[in-house]
């Protein structure tokens, strides 16, 4: 698949529809001895129906925290979730009573985890684990739920669904387990699916299959996917739009093709440059971004990326840039954007 293909044909129409999920200024803080750790520091984004938004960043950039905060899966305390609003289907998730939140999880708002090996209950059959949300959220009878389970197992490409429903997780391969996990997550046809590194634990051929499956199911169900990954290749394959996170903030967003072709933020540029490529000439040393992601407790006053940035000047170190519109349909938080 080439980059050009990744801008799905329905993107222009999707752009016109109202977002199903609108995250506005989300913060996740942890109180630590001697201060506050800002794991997520003012993240905002929209997710439209049928769209895949890739949330990309290094380990510790706050992408997983963002997703867990969305579903309110963080223990509070120690975590503290704040923000203007997280609007989902007309409701503000940040202010929803826990009871209603529980009803929403797994039905309208679902999640796929990174580790298919450990995300399934080891002593419950696959079938029962898929039945559960169906019975709980849709109120199906056991028999109806099982029939739907077989259908779902077929849908996610597990051969002989009726038999597969009776096996235990350890009897399935990693790829099959992730398919089962996807079947559970999509059982109630959620309008938003959060996929946190859904392919990281799988080997490359299986990765491609799982991504293809997600894409295909998305087209059938119109689910919006928030795809969290550190793997730019995964983003290029599946996402329509991408948001790059750095040190708890989004530094750049935009359509995948445009962003990959001409990154605006020096950090995005660095990320793209550090992807190994297959080239004929003996490869020069792989460029890297010097330095490390600052620890969340020790953010500089200015742009968080400034200490590692080749283009930074006094302004960058002095004040923090806000996320601002740049070019068409793109945003960047940088004083000296590239290609700007």
């Amino acid at each position, binding site marked *: 698949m080439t980059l050009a293909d990744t801008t799905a044909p329905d993107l222009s129409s999707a752009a016109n529809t109202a977002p199903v999920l609108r995250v506005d200024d989300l913060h996740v803080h942890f109180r630590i001895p001697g201060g506050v750790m800002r794991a997520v520091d003012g993240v905002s984004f929209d997710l439209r129906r049928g769209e895949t938004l890739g949330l990309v960043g290094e380990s510790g950039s706050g992408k997983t925290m963002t997703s867990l905060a969305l579903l309110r899966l963080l223990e509070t305390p120690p975590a503290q979730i704040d923000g203007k609003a997280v609007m989902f289907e007309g409701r503000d998730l940040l202010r929803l009573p826990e009871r209603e939140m*529980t009803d929403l*999880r*797994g039905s309208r708002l679902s999640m796929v985890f990174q580790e298919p090996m450990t995300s*399934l209950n*080891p*002593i419950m059959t696959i079938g029962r684990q898929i039945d559960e*949300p169906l019975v*709980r959220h849709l109120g199906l009878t056991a028999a109806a739920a099982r029939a739907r389970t077989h259908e779902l197992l077929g849908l996610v490409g597990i051969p002989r669904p009726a038999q597969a429903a009776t096996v235990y997780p350890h009897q399935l391969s990693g790829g099959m387990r992730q398919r089962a996990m996807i079947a*559970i*997550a999509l059982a109630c046809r959620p309008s938003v699916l959060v996929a946190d590194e859904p392919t990281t634990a799988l080997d490359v051929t299986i990765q491609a299959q799982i991504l293809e499956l997600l894409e295909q199911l998305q087209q059938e169900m119109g689910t919006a996917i928030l795809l969290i990954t550190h793997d730019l290749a995964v983003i290029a394959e599946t996402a329509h739009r991408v948001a790059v996170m750095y040190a708890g903030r989004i530094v750049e967003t935009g359509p995948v093709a445009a962003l990959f072709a001409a990154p605006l933020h020096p950090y995005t540029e660095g990320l793209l440059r550090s992807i190994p490529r297959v080239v004929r000439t003996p490869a020069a040393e792989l460029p890297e971004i010097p330095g490390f992601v600052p620890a969340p407790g020790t953010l500089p006053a200015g742009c968080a990326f400034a200490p590692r940035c080749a283009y930074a000047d006094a302004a960058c170190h002095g004040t923090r840039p806000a996320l601002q519109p740049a070019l068409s349909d793109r945003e960047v938080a940088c004083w000296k954007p590239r290609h700007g």
Partner: protein
Amino acid sequence: MSSAARAGVMRRFTRHHLALFGGVTVVLLCLSALLAPAIAPRDPLLLDTSVRFLLPFASWTFPLGTDELGRDTLSRLLYGGQISLTVGLVAMATTVVTGSVIGLLAGYLGGWTDTLLMRFVDTMLCFPQVFLLLVVAAFIPPTLISISLIIGLTSWMEVARIVRSEILHLKEQDFIQAARALGAGKTRIMFQELLPNIVAPLLVAATLKVAAAVLMESYISYLGYGVQPPLASWGNMLTNAQGYFDTVPWLAILPGVMITLTVMGFNFLGDGLRDALDPRLRMESRPANAPTLRTRRLACLEQNDSASRAGKRWLVAWRRR
């Protein structure tokens, strides 16, 4: 559990000879207690002063002899088994239910609930169990059920601790997080996701608790607070026998052997179950000098079973094997 895994558990269990022995003993004891009305040669309460203190194996009418009132010892042992095993099983059920609910709440909910519940456990553990038992037994009229409940309600603490520690470990696992993300509530997670995952350690604790409860029943019956005469239990048979111990020792030896067999049977069974069910043993790479589950269990037993001399003796013998 898949058929393959089940076969594996069975194989590990039957390879464990002592466990197999324990299992067979337990089954035989339960059968003999259940079938007591059918196989007992006489009414266990029937007095016949013309045949007092008959020796065992001396006559066909009284295969194991008679006691000081001429009652048939074999029949009394069989009926006494009904009482002792009932107390053991009911007390075990009480212990397991109370212990796992408290352990589950403390472990999963954490925070204040955990602190309060575990301090309560500590408080309960402060009192020596026998002392607690005797105090309560002195106020509550001893019936089969009340004795079982008293034993059960004074011995659930270790189960609560075992369950809590298992839950603390389990609740951090991805599939619990996943269950939450898919809309499972607290109750659901505790009783449908977590509890079934600790069945193995619970089963082991349960068998060991039966043994402990049988001992405990003998103990308080021996002290006169338990099952009241003329009803036979192994414990009060021992009490009756102590007056004649120098002249007719078999009256004490026979119920003693039954108690020992039961305790041993359940302990071996529990031990075997633990070895067979423990998933950690399924992993091949265990360091040779790592503490085995058996040594861990011995350590537990040593702490818990201060009341049981017989248990201790078996412990020593067991360790020397």
